[in-house]
């Protein structure tokens, strides 16, 4: 036998006809994955070849004046991800306010996949809102911060051990332009998202020595995409007691690119932050707002 031909090298493992994606062999954990931005990001990660653990609350919360992501919607996201060529997809319902739920999600991911490379902290609520700051009730205030800030922190707390041991990982916190500027009648939400940006910077400093990156993603006003089943924009409009079309128009006018943000626009940035292409980016806020905060 002669020395083997050089072409006999690495046996490809990607599905036929598809090059290995940017997240092939990586595991991503996505919260709030049932619909909207969470679904778009999960699908983007799936297309990049990641193994996915998807979670959402799967029930409504008293005090939140709109229906939350359902188990069926989460299962549908998983289906879309499998169709897009994800590695393996596991769904686990969880309430990010519940420490035990959060631990179960992370344990499942580690048990199934052995590692967690990406955490997309996307779960959040935009309402109850629409009140002047001094009219917000203590329960409304606590609920908003518990989900939007503490929920993200609980997830970081739960994955931190595995990621630091791996000496790698990317955490993406989905904040908002409300994490950068104020909005009238959204004091709770604005406070929570500003806090999330602060958490991002502090966590980035804590985890940088371990090769783990933490960044915040600040979308502007995102269209309620039918395929993504998003409803944030309409809920905000309802909180403000204006027709959705009028609210949309206000934001289109305010965003210099002259159109609303699509969930896929956010997913593009979320994929970049998750991948090695952003390997020197940490503690930063990536704004996807069509120029809104540049004014």
């Amino acid at each position, binding site marked *: 036998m002669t020395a083997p031909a050089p072409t006999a090298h690495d046996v490809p493992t990607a599905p036929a006809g598809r090059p290995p994606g940017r997240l092939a062999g990586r595991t991503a954990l996505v919260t709030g994955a049932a619909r909207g931005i969470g679904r778009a990001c999960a699908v983007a990660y799936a297309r990049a070849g990641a193994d996915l653990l998807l979670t959402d609350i799967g029930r409504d919360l008293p005090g939140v004046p709109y229906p939350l992501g359902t188990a069926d919607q989460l299962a549908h996201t998983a289906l879309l991800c499998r169709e897009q060529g994800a590695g393996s997809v596991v769904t686990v319902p969880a309430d990010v306010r519940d420490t035990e739920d959060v631990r179960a999600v992370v344990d499942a991911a580690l048990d199934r996949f*052995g590692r967690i490379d990406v955490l997309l902290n996307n779960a959040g609520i935009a309402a109850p809102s629409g009140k002047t700051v001094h009219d917000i009730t203590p329960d409304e205030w606590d609920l908003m911060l518990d989900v939007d800030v503490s929920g993200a922190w609980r997830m970081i707390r739960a994955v931190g051990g595995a990621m630091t041991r791996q000496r790698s990982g990317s955490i993406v916190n989905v904040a908002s332009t409300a994490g950068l500027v104020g909005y009238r009648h959204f004091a709770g939400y604005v406070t929570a998202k500003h806090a999330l940006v602060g958490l991002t910077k502090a966590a980035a400093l804590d985890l940088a020595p371990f090769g783990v990156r933490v960044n915040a993603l600040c979308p502007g006003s995102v269209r309620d995409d039918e395929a993504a089943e998003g409803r944030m924009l309409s809920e905000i409009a309802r909180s403000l007691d204006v027709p959705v079309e009028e609210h949309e128009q206000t934001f289109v006018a305010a965003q210099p690119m002259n159109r609303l943000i699509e969930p896929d626009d956010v997913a593009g940035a979320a994929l970049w932050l998750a991948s090695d292409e952003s390997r020197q980016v940490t503690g930063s806020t990536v704004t996807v707002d069509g120029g809104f905060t540049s004014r």
Partner: protein
Amino acid sequence: MTDDHLHDPSAAGRLCRAVALRVHTGADPERLGRDLALLTGTAGARLWVEDVPDGAESPAAAHARERELTRPTDPATGPGLRAVLLRYADGGADLVVVAHRAVPADPYELARALLDPAARPTAPVTAPHDAAGRLGEQVARLDRSPAPDWGLGEPGTAGAGGRPFTLPVHGEAPAAVTAAAALGLVLARCTGGPDVELGTGPGHSLTFTADATLTVGEYLERVRRAEPVPSRAPAAGLYVTEPAEVLTGEGLKAEVIEDRPFLAPLHPLSVHVTDDGSTVLSGVCHHRRSAFGDSAVEWLTGMLVTAHRALVTARPDTPLADVPLLDDDQRRRLAVLGGLGRTPAAPEAAGERIEQTVRSWAERTPDATALTFEGTELTYRQLDERAERIAGALRALGVAPADRVGVCLDRTADLVVILLGVLKTGAAYVPMDPAYPADRLAYMTEDAELSLVVTESDAFPAAEGVRTVHPGSLAAADPDREAPEPGPLSADAAAYVIYTSGSTGRPKGVVVPHRNVAALMDATRADFGLGGRDVWTLFHSSAFDFSVWEIWGCLTTGGRLVVVPYWASRDPERFARLLGEERVTVLSQTPSAFAQLMEADRAEPVTDSVRLVVFGGEPLDTRPLLSWLDRHPASRCRLVNMFGITETTVHVTAQTVTRSEALTGSRSVGHPLPGWHLYVLDPEGRELPPGVAGEIHVGGAGVAGQYLNRPELTAQRFVPDPHAPGPMYRSGDRGRLLPDGRLEHLGRLDNQVKLRGFRIELDEIRARLLDAPGVAAAAVVLRQKPGDAAGARLDAYVVLRGGDGAPGPDGTAPAAGTEEVRRHAARFLPEHMVPSTVTALPALPLTPNGKIDTSRLPEPLAGVRTTPAAADEEAGDLETRLRGVWEKVFGFRVGPDDDFFTLGGNSLLAVRLLAALREAAMPVFPLPQLYLHRTVRTLAAHLAGAEARA
């Protein structure tokens, strides 16, 4: 099978094992899930079920299975094991079990226990954490052991690769023995030592020797008897998996289809051989690319296959040394990689004699200038006519074809005319440098059996039967007395005999035929674009064969040769000016000489007419060239590093040095010239694959073929070429091939010294010194007084950039710089390799050939607070005091007869010397006096006289 992105570089993947079983019956997820929970107790592993929307034999199924087989499990974050049931659309199912080595049971046992309740262990199989920690430490230790140089890995590269192979089974010996024996033999030959250590797990390995004195039978027996011992973290591991039984039972039928001892290469090189009971063993060479490159593994795998076949088929009494690692095809491939079969595209001068080619230029461009020397010029016609007259005169003196004529002349235009004249007679010239000691000249005269030497020197050692003739008398000879011209002359006849000293023994004359020089020009003419518009320098002594390239490279391509006068060759600034005045285009330099020219270039840029610089004669450190490339972009001035040997006609390889070579400090000397080829062989003369260092052997058009009158030495050094007609030359140089066929030159085989029992490569120390910031040039010598082994030490010498390296005007030693250099070296080198002293010199002393002259490196002053000379400073006589001041200024010991400028003195140091004299309240003198009185002795005498007169 393996791929970058699925190879987990973390310890977990390397410490996990995995099996996949095809479950024909018994794949009930509910029962399996329940049993798994029972089996894993409190750790509570759960069964994962994955539905694959395609058949069991589909690519999608294979892909899903592969994904599970490469997914690690970490006892730090879970039970340390995972079971996944893959269900396929056609009803088929696979059970994949991955288990960390910290888990007491292996994945096959777990799978069996899960599928077959009868095989269930009594204790739960959860992971003890301390075991995981211990294994992690063992992996970390594996990572700390250095990767072998020959692996050609790229440090810092992530990822792993795998190369499949098959080994035919033969005879009764178990696969674990034959595979270990074959791999051990390959590793022993690559590392160059008999001791083999093969990892068999994270903490243990097999050790045995592949001693060349063993027979195959003895060797196999040793391997068979080898017992695993606690591991010293070897670079290579071998894992042999054997066939597992088919699981059958009530409602159960399952068989192992994959068995992986690791998910990512545990050792930098991890060989996995599967013995499935058939007639071939299938294997994969897994490797981490940081330590083993794809190409090195390709060759290694090929050698493994060849060695295995040879070992299992050889008679037991076959000497192990006779077992080949490369079959004929592989050897041929190596030879082709080394340049065999590459020939110049369009040979012009093939087979021509040198003087014929020069003559053809005299016919084509008779009025073109051929020679320039100190303002005088000769056209090609004049050159040819004058050389013809010389030839006539030589013939009249009895010179006939196949004779040898000594030429002992300084570098002038006459020298070139005489050399050409000698060639025209059909004789060969034997160049001798007038600066050589008389003994050496006498030796060469006798050894070459010269009867005629052309020289201007009255001091040329007289010998019986040797006639010396003045070049002037040859030129003035009466043409009528000419002897008849010889008949047709052969290109196979000798053109010159050049003496090389070598490190041991007497100098020997290398006999080089005309044909070789023609081949050299055919190999380079097109690539270097050499032609009539080029202006070359003759910078080197005719006794150094770099001059062959300069003189005949120029005159056989129609260029103009500028003969560099001695004074210009010793003064870089004047040489730089000469380059500009003559608009030189092709410059040949030793790296040491070029380093000085680069310094001059910093002060005043060297002319941009220079379009090609050819380095030769010494190893080139590419890093300092970066500053030259900053000022002279490679697009305008090409730098070519040529490795060469007198015995192979000046050059062997050529490497264009660009920014990327300079930035990476490339040690590549490039591909062999077309027509030349090379082999890297081990001490037994066997070919070595790319990456493995051995002795460079050169074959092809440049091989000289013989030493004059030294048949024994000729037979030793010029040996039969295994792949081509004619001899190849054993160079005594260390080198290795790179996977693309370029050569890395690694110094002389004999540049190893022994210090207090340690083998030390001086070149390695030198390379580290050159790494230090600010070091432009470096040399290291082992200094040992005879009979004083304990006093032996390494002395290093450096030229510091951006300064002359001399001490300050107040006489303080330049300790800051040199101490820093020493500390830098100490950071990388083992203690016994750190030089005891580091002395800064303004320039390194060079031999007449432009190479570093280690014999003229001064005794270091470093570490000696008060030198004998300095101690007497107050009391001593003027000469001793003066010497003390010189030593302060230079920073090293100075002899009374050392020439100020030869020591590296320059005008800046001269000013410092005057300042130091003034400070020591000693007589001072006008600066130009130093040019007249260049030694301590003569200057002291002059100053004493001046004092007396005053």
